[in-house]
């Protein structure tokens, strides 16, 4: 057996702690939002249970709706690129998104009769997405920063694993109670070790997704003489040309016929008309690939319906197959609702690891006679305060169109200040605040939007149970110890 020196372990523990102290807060927010977003389809239904639904589309329906989408986008002056997202089993809603190429965009829902209607906005889901994808920073910078934090998370996972001397001896041991450090350390280590492959996969794919733009720019500079389009085309196929002369709409019907011949029985999941209704236009169609991790295959057509390119996410080169797997592996979109629930649970586990990691560091400081009281309160405010803030913003957005991002930063600042003022009462107050916020959210949702969709009802019940558990946290602990 390989003997690991104590000096090595000490160095790893030191490095692991240093990474956690410096970056733990942001990593916690990313893990929390990521766990929430694994259920994005269900939360979309929950946020707007009354949005129009549509199911089972024939090829003729798709052709007709896509034609209407293009015409509507042209009327609205946003027909540079038009994206038609088909309904799925998990989200039976069809949406159209169109952008003008200068930063403006519009979107619509499609009702059961195939007409485009004003989109039922989901501002809370979009806020959580903005926080997870960009940390609310504008432009690509936020995305790069998120990618950097994914890389730091990977470094933290590796140092945490190497710091663990008793990985086998403690493999099945979980103690709750005792000293604060021991209880947190057991939780941190057990979740960390048993779910290690998931944590590594999510951190690596998140890091690649965040840094992809930056890596492409550098790669384009070096390998493609600064031509970013060429670098992108190597993976995403030919790009639409800049010939802006007007042209008739693309022949979607012919493209769907080609797909039916080449890939019999396959379902279309998305149609994107790039540089729509110009001489430079092309159409990218995604089709479902159920037994593949990539979940989709992409085909690119000329406006007349000629197949130009096939991505090969399911049967292409090793590189393209790996490329196709990155996003589904990160978000857990390759196995239906059950897998999403597993992802949400494992994501929550990663969030608990980050939270307990901070608790361990703070408890160790206290044990060593150097308590960091202010930092302890701020950490408590972050751990319990962030989910409470998400719940408060969701409740407010149900009743009024508030600015979500500004509200988030204001509430985050307020919770940190309040925690510093609350003194030793901060932990109990923060847990109660979270419980109250979750109960308030469930009640507001039911009172305002009613009880209609079973998914929305399930989420409301889950919020209520979690809220009551957070409110009864102290009593629950006492009950467990009495047993």
């Amino acid at each position, binding site marked *: 057996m390989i003997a690991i020196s104590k000096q090595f372990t000490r160095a790893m523990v030191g490095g692991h702690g240093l990474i956690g102290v410096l970056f733990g807060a942001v990593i916690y927010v990313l893990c929390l939002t990521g766990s929430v977003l694994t259920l994005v389809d269900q939360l979309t239904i929950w946020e707007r249970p009354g949005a129009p639904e549509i199911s089972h589309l024939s090829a003729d329906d798709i052709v007709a709706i896509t034609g209407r989408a293009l015409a509507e986008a042209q009327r609205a002056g946003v027909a540079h690129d038009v994206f038609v997202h088909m309904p799925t089993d998990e989200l039976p809603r069809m949406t159209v998104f169109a952008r003008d190429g200068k930063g403006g965009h519009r979107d619509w829902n499609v009702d059961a009769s195939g007409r485009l209607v004003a989109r039922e906005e989901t501002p809370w889901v979009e806020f959580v997405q903005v926080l997870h994808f960009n940390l609310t920073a504008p432009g690509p910078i936020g995305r790069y920063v998120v990618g950097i934090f994914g890389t730091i998370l990977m470094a933290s996972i590796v140092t945490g694993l190497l710091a663990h001397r008793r990985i086998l*001896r403690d493999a099945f041991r979980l103690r709750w109670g005792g000293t604060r450090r021991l209880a947190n350390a057991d939780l941190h280590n057990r979740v960390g070790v*048993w779910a290690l492959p998931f944590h590594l996969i999510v951190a690596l794919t998140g*890091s690649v997704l965040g840094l992809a733009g930056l890596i492409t720019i550098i790669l384009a500079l070096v390998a493609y003489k600064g031509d970013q389009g060429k*670098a992108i085309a190597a993976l995403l196929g030919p790009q639409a040309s800049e010939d802006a002369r007007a042209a008739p709409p693309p022949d979607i019907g012919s493209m769907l016929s080609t797909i039916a011949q080449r890939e019999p029985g396959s379902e279309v999941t998305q149609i994107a008309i790039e540089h729509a209704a110009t001489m430079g236009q092309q159409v990218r169609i995604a089709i479902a690939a159920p*037994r593949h991790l990539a979940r989709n295959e992409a085909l690119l057509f000329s406006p007349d319906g000629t197949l130009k390119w096939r991505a090969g996410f399911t049967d292409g080169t090793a590189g*393209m197959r790996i490329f196709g797997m990155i996003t589904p592996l990160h978000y857990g979109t390759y196995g239906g609702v059950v897998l999403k629930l597993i992802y949400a649970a494992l994501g929550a586990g990663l969030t608990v690891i980050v939270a307990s990691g901070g608790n361990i560091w703070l408890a160790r400081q206290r044990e060593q006679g150097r308590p960091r009281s202010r930092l302890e309160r701020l950490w408590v405010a972050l751990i319990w305060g962030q989910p409470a803030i998400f719940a408060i913003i969701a409740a407010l957005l149900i009743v009024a169109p508030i600015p979500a991002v500004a509200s988030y930063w204001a509430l985050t600042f307020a919770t940190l200040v309040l925690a510093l003022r609350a003194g030793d009462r901060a932990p109990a107050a923060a847990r109660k605040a979270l419980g109250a916020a979750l109960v308030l959210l469930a009640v507001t949702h039911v009172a305002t939007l009613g009880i209609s969709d079973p998914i929305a009802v399930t989420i409301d019940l889950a919020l209520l149970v979690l809220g009551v558990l957070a409110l009864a946290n102290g009593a629950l602990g006492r009950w467990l110890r009495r047993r």
Partner: protein
Amino acid sequence: MSSGIWTLLALAGSLGGVLLSWKAWQNAWQDGGPTGRARPLMAAAGALAVFSLALWAAGYGAEIGIPLALETGALIAFGFILTRMEVRPLREMRARTAPPLPARSRWIGAARFATAGVLGFAAAIGLGVLFATRAPLGEQTRLILGALAVPSLWSAAIAWTACDRRLLPQTLVFSGIAAVSAAATLATSR
């Protein structure tokens, strides 16, 4: 066979693997190490884990089945550990006071940050780009593996810099890798 039956069998396999691992773990630590009674149990647990993985792959295809096996296995194991949680009475720590640690130089902190963040990234991107442009593989495979290598190598650089109190070895290694990989990329691209 329907996917539901595959799933049930695979879940049973994962659970069996976890239970046998636990029995092996119990015996191993009673014996003072993974010897004696623990070995056959560990072998059986490993065999069940492989059997479960094969069932997931057979039911859902290898691409989806393998990650499903790992993820459900992790959840089952942790669920089992939760059922065996030892609840102890709360123990308050004794209040201690210790002299504050000597203040660390901010310059060293900044240098560590720069070494891990800038030089580590330069080395990682250097190697990633070299691989993406020069590896003897198809263009798309080179690009994707090169892109995946960048965060992996950078995280290794961050881990090393965070764990090692010295800074000179990392500075030399990262600068050297960045310079050599950039030179190799440029030299071979002419």
